[in-house]
């Protein structure tokens, strides 16, 4: 099953590049939803079967794959924007940076001691690379929705690392993390709504009235 899990992780990395390279918001949201579904399947591939596992899989796929993308999709439709135009940093430079970060995260992961069971997986590099991708999207995009997408990708990266700990971490922490993600997105969704109402656009670079002279 190891190779299958690794193939899924490669898919996750590819989706990272999609979210870095596309300007269409709905496409980006769908890509992150697909990433969420893959993250839901992954625990089933590396841990033995249990009902607890089934429950986790269902919850993750439901939340990351459907609920959150739906909330974001609604925000996009109500704000009537389709594209991310003029990001702070162009698509080609961010893609290049993404590639560099991915390479670096493989190097970083190689220098850390791993459990023999996890030795052959790509979990750590995939996790760090996804985290950095999220960070890149967050910092280089102008639209509020893109920034939320970046935040979600960042959380996905953290989640991948969490898979290595599924047995060690009490369920409460997992649940708490998911809940925070949901609530966070929900609150951000409301804020987005308000931004579009106040400024009639979702461009956070218009939010400059508080800039330091």
């Amino acid at each position, binding site marked *: 099953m190891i190779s299958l899990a690794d193939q899924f992780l490669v898919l996750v990395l590819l989706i990272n590049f999609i979210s870095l390279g596309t300007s269409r918001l709905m496409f980006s949201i769908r890509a992150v939803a697909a990433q969420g579904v893959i993250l839901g399947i992954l625990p089933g591939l590396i841990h033995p079967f249990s009902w607890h596992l089934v429950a986790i899989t269902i919850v993750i796929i439901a939340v990351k794959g459907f609920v959150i993308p739906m909330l974001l999709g609604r925000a996009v439709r109500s704000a009537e924007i389709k594209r991310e135009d003029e990001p702070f940093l162009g698509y080609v430079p961010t893609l290049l940076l993404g590639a560099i970060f991915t390479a670096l995260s493989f190097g970083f992961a190689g220098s850390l*001691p791993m459990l023999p069971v996890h030795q052959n997986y790509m979990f750590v590099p995939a996790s760090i690379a996804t*985290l950095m991708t999220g960070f890149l999207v967050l910092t280089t995009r102008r639209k509020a929705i893109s*920034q939320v997408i970046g935040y979600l990708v960042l959380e996905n990266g953290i989640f991948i*690392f969490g898979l290595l700990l599924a047995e060690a*971490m009490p369920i409460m922490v997992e649940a708490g993390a998911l809940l*925070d993600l949901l609530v966070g997105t929900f609150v951000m969704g409301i804020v987005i709504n308000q931004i579009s109402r106040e400024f009639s656009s979702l461009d956070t670079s218009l939010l400059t009235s*508080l800039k330091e002279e």
Partner: protein
Amino acid sequence: MLFYAALIILPLSGAAATWLIPFDRMRPKVLSLFACGHMAITARMLIVTPPESPGGWFHLDALGKIVLLSTSMLFLTCAIYSIGYLNYRRERSNRTLCVGLLVCLAAASLVTITHHLGLMWVALETTTISMAPLIYFNRNARSIEATWKYLLICSVGVALALIGLYFLAYATIVAKVEPSLLLDDLMRYAGKLSSGWVHAAVVFLLVGFGTKMGLAPLHTWKPDAYGEAPGLVGALLSGGLVNLAFLALLRVYQLSLATNEILFFQNVLIVMGLVSMIFAAVFMARQADFKRMLAYSSVEHVGIMAVALGLGGKAIFGALFHVLANGLTKGVLFLSSGNIHRSYNSKSTDHVRGALRRLPWSGGLFLAGFIAITGSPPFAPFISEFTIVSSAFTQGRMLIGAIFLISLTVIFIGMALTVLPMVMGDVPPDSESTSYRDSFWTVGPPLALLLLVFVLGVWIPAPLMELLREASALLEVPQ
């Protein structure tokens, strides 16, 4: 166990109660009632420390006690203040505000009593999210910008802290000890943990909690959030939430002590702390908005606490005392500045002049708060700042001590240039006047805090001294 549960459940049931109450005028009173209850439980827990809960998840140690005490006191004052303050804000419902405050209090209490780092993380994130709607209380374009920045930067910060925790948990798995995120377990197994993972964890935790605390260069959300939030929310952000993030850093500090990461951690803390102080000194100078000026003062004071932690030794005592001193003084400043803001309907220093003449009480409190926060005797921050500086010099770290002192001086001058014209002189004839008048409910709470800051400046009660000593002992570098 009973008290641990009560400390969390009481504010939560208060949140439910304020949610259900349909009358705006009644909510702040109920809020104060629950704040009194919380203070009573806190007092009981400080006097008779409840035993550690089975499994070790809940354990109120000396560090937790200090932060719990300062949070509870500040919250109670802010709750009582809200009775008078919200009277002037009747144009909008205060339901979200009251519910958010109580949820935040519950989460804050949880941060102080838990020794499980994962649970502590969940609670910290809850405090961040529950405060977001409160920053947006004024419902205008500026406050939405502040809320957006706050939410995004703090959420990313706390997310980075989470991956730090995951690294720690994985370190326990690699070391083949019982996987755990309990502080006590981690410290017990410290020798066996892989240093690579622990090192990476410390870096991520420092960045994560540092963002939440507002250490430069991760402080960019602070001036906006503090500037746009209502005064009492600003007081709780700068006097309450900052201390919670500091407590989280203290936990990382305890861990670093056990794992030989301490030298690295201390050096980074000193650098970040001094950078914060310098940043504050630079931006404080020409601040045209007095609430933003207070935000930079908060950046300064988290910097002071970080430097003190980095210095170690006697400075630790100063840092812990500063948790109380800074928290309470920030309460005085934000609550009185809220009053001034109400009266002039402006927070620009161009419009606000002669506050002492128009609002003798609030203006006087603001002036006294300024004197206290800049570290002048006889107020409490003087004691902590003096302890820290003298510790820097007795350790022979002249450069750190010098930068520290110079920053303090520049900040004093910068702040004075803003505060003195505000409170002195005559009220400009064209200044807007509102229905706000100083009254018992809006002046009493900050006055009580100021008295407390004064008393702590001249006399530290023996039990508090004992508590501070006990807490510093937990953070001592083993010889």
